[in-house]
């Protein structure tokens, strides 16, 4: 995950915005997955 951040920053510094966008998408997807997992977990806890 940290490596993805580093890649994103380095690509932004290189002004290679297409590649930077890919890394940003990966980061956002990871964040969303985390949020969804959190939501599922909270639902399961409530059900118990």
């Amino acid at each position: 995950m940290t490596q993805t951040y580093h890649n994103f920053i380095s690509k932004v510094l290189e002004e290679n915005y297409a590649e930077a966008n890919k890394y940003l998408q990966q980061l956002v997807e990871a964040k969303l997955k985390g949020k969804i997992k959190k939501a599922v977990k909270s639902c399961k806890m409530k059900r118990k």
Partner: protein
Amino acid sequence: MSDIKDTLNDEAKEILTNESLTKLEQHFNEKVTLHVEKALNEQDEEYSAALEKFLEALDTDHSAKLKKVVEAIEVNHTNKLKKVISKYEGALTTEANDFRKDLVSKISSYLDLYLEKHIPQDTLVEAVKNKQAATMLGSIRAALGVDMALAKESVRSAVIDGKNQINEARTELEDLKAKFNALDQDNSALRAKLFIEQKTADLSNNKKGYVKKILTGKSLDFIKENYDYTISMFEKKEEERLQDLTEQAKATSASSKVDRVVLQESAPAPVQTHEPTNLYLSELQKYK
């Protein structure tokens, strides 16, 4: 200081005339001028030499002092530069790493905030609940629907009948598939055989036999692809065989020209039969 002319005039006014005094004065003055110039030149040379020595000594002293000053300045600057280098190296390694970590955490926080603002956690929880409920409802509906349908007698018999029909149709389909495959194979074999027959109709018996031997039992596609190649192979083999035969014939004719030792095989000498024994035997033959 009194003039030379006045001095001479005082001392030898009775001996020298006024003209000779003037001449003497002139000569004396010239000599004095020459001596003074010479003395001045010598003094100049002496002073210039001394001055050069003095300047050289001064230069040496100044250059030594200057070297010391330069060395001291170099040492001082080197030490300062080393300090600057170590400080910037530290800044590059530690401070840059800290900056990078800080930047990563800030970007992460920004993304969190952005996602929280546009996709709130409550919405996600609600979506998860809806999805779970929909899945649960679907599974319940499927289970209950089948059970309810099977619960009725008429529906059950219809379902069983349908299942039997499906099984029969499946069995029939399998049989038909097997028959179709067998017929397809036969058809392929016949087509291949027909193809070979058509192609080899005008060929010689040897060639026809060779082609049949090689291609019989193969698929039609294989035969079509390899027919020309098989014919070429046969012709090549035939050509090689003929060449071998020609060479053998040549070798045989060459060996027949060599002088051979003629062996005269003597016929076995006729057995001298005894006349009375022969007669006896001939008589015995009669009673066989």
